[in-house]
């Protein structure tokens, strides 16, 4: 059975960085990137992994930026070009969670956040719900995540988030190609 842990990890990495020590997640990310054959990575600098840098960059990319958040990490923003939260993309995500017998635990985030969706993929892999996984990834995740990853790329993200976006996108693509999802 496929391993859900990379998806759980990616989910965590897409939440606000409050690590006591940022090195372990950075190491996982680089290791995953290596496993996925991601080459030509720009050279990392020590500062780019400083916790305060990661936090400011996370806020800029995903929470609030003066020019508007460059890459809002929510399905609702992209699906049917709605541009705002809690629309069809959100409804779809919630319906999929419901079909798996799950509901999001209480957090302050919107539940169609990329972190939630990656964790949900992990859960479906974990529990062998492949038909639902197939539908979720092909029918929902792929309807918005490529746009999100594209916007992340063009937002000139700091090293960690540049790699994170690429690794997450590759993981989803592998899931489709290698696992025979639609």
């Amino acid at each position, binding site marked *: 059975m496929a391993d859900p842990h*990379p998806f*759980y990890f990616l989910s965590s*990495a897409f939440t606000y960085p409050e690590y006591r020590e940022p090195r372990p997640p950075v190491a996982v990310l680089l290791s995953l990137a290596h496993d996925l054959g991601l080459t030509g990575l720009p050279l990392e600098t020590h500062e780019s992994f400083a916790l*305060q840098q990661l*936090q400011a960059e996370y806020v800029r990319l995903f929470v609030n930026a003066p020019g508007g958040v460059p890459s809002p990490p929510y399905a609702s923003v992209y699906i049917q070009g709605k541009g705002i939260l809690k629309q069809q993309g959100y409804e779809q995500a919630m319906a999929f969670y419901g079909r798996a017998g799950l509901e999001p635990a209480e957090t302050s985030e919107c539940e169609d956040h990329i972190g939630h969706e990656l964790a949900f993929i992990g859960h479906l892999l974990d529990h062998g719900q492949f038909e639902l996984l197939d539908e979720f990834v092909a029918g929902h995740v792929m309807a918005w995540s490529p746009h999100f990853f594209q916007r992340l790329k063009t937002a000139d993200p700091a090293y960690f988030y540049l790699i994170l976006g690429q690794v997450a996108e590759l993981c989803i693509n*592998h899931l489709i190609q290698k696992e025979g999802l639609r």
Partner: protein
Amino acid sequence: MNRRRFIKMSTATALTIAASTMDGLPGGAGLFRKARAETAVGKATGSMGAKETTSVCEMCFWRCPIVAKVTDGRLTKIEGNPKSPVNGTRVCARGNSGVQLLYDPDRIKYPMKRVGARGEGKWAKISWDEALGEIAHNMETVKKKYGPHALAYFDHGASAENLREIFMATGTENYTSEPAFFQCVGPAALAYLETLGYIATGTRQYNDMAHAKAILLVGSHIGENVHVSHVREFIEGLSQGAKLVVVDPRLSMAAGKATIHLPIRPGTDNALLLAWINYVIQNNLYNKAFVANTCEGFDRLKEEVKGYSLEWAAKICDLKPDGMKAAIELLAKASPNVNIHPGRHATWYGKGDVGRHQLYAILSALFGAVGVPGGLYFPTSVKVGHVECVEQKSKQVAPIEKSLKDIYPYSAMFGTPTADVIKAMVTGKPYPIKLLGVNGVNIMQTIPDPYETMKAIKNLDFIFCEEIMAGETAIWSDIILPEAVYLERYDGVYAYEGLTPYITVRQPVLPPMYEAKSPYWIAANLAKRLKVEGFPYKDDKAYVDDQLAAADLSIDKLNREGGLVTLKGNPYREGKDLKIGTDSGKIKLAVEAFADEDLDAIPKFEPTPAPPKGYTRLIYGRSPVHTFTRTMNNLWLNHEVPENFLWLNDTVAGKLGIKNDETVRLENQDGKRSTPIKVLVTPGIRPDAVYMAHGFGSQSPLLTRAYGKGAADGFLMTNTIADPFMGATSKRTNFVKIVKGDTVLDIPEIVPLPEEIPRAGRQVQAG
């Protein structure tokens, strides 16, 4: 399918994942739990079968009663509350767009602190505990170091009151410096208060356009400035046959409907009004009984205005005497059911702004158009409890040697003038101001001369804001507090005292998203840290219920009534019921108290300097789908009106070789340039003025999805004249040239200037 092939994780990866999950990483599998009930999401679409909650709109300050429709925990639609006598089921475009505000991905989601330079907009997320602790610490430190008056608060709107009480409890005299007052309605409010004994125009306007036989608008552009009930009353009046006189340098939407449009030379309105008043007196067009019984100072008025003839005013105002005469006779004929619209945004020219509104009030009084259908009417007092969260005895202003409230005779009753607070931040005089709290104000675009504001902010030890959107104020703040959107919170009770009084409340339609909190919660929790006693209610609902108790209501009771109860109005008064609220009990055609302060008891004409040679005057107005600078980023409203246009007279455009839709910049008298703006070439504006709608085109390259769309009037306002009554600052005393490519073009003078009007110098000095 061979699922085993998926991502061949190396041993290194597996090990590091294991290590990292032990390091307190959030997210992952913990984001979900087993569903407790069948998920209902996705079963219904749109607002069909929605749960309805009544509330109050806050997309602008008009506060229309609304019904919000929630389906599966999501807001799907906003409509007017059918029980509302003022808007019924209607809301405007902005009212509809509350859905978009609630769900804007750019709303402030968490408390944040600045991690870059001020103005850079670089933030980190922090906890509420840290944010409030930091604010309390800085308030205490600044107070200790510089004294209580070193703290200042710029406030606006319904959500600002709770935090204002905290500032009051610090002992500062600068607990309110509301730009909405000192940069907008202040002079009008004072003029009506002193002349008629009540504020006929403020947040509310007590003028009865629906029943008027004639309406006068001076510079008011109803229809471009949309408040639902206001527009409805205007249209109702016109549809019932009211004649309309519009005085405006521009063919505004309202002017397009006018019986008579007088395209006046900007800055000369008082000349026209004085001449009209003289004409009304000389030709016995005034209501003698009303003036004799209800007014005082008539003889003095008659004497003081006798020199102002229509012919004289025609030259000053660049109007035709016949048109002026026809207009005043048309208004007089409708007397007493004539609506001399009191206007709202009054800070035009500094000197003469109070006077202009005094002259409107005098004209209303001469026509007997006070307390009658179609004229100005009286607010009906609606009984709701005024609840203070901090006791009055804890809100005493600390002793002060040189007060900012003493600079002008009438500022003390309203607050400290915004411009003087900024000056004190820059110069440290008469005392230093080192901490600023901001609530609901775009400090860069609302206050003229943003360059000075930036300088002031750089001098502060600490600045924080309570905001909904990450706009210009947030960019400059050290700590940013995410405020719940109006659809997520309770606010005070809304008692409408207009023609058809009612009581309603704002209540949450949904719980706050992310970590946003209500203004009451924020203030109550800051109070705890500052050891300010007060905020005794267990929650926001109890706070509102206490206010409703005086009207024998509660939120639950009100909700059973459809969220709104109507009351009997008492707007029209005559005979012994007509009580004027001035100290003498009479309408003051001459305000002696002004003379006691060396100000004019009756306004005299003092010309506003005309543009320097080669310049034209910049005037501004509103876009019907936007509220100030607040909504330009709203996806739906931005889609409707993404940018403003520069209205340029067709003859001037022809001489300058500028075509319709061409993009230009503006350069003001101090060399400040605007962002690019497209030109609307039109005969609908005088040659000696250009016009743009306010709120667009911030010059901050960091700001908004609307950046680069149009130009900002505020960034061209570097010359302000202080109004001598209260220190409100003028906004129409700025002049511009047009920049085409790299060439700065002189504006040709098409209309000659009479010698009575001086020309402003190129470098205009603040007066």
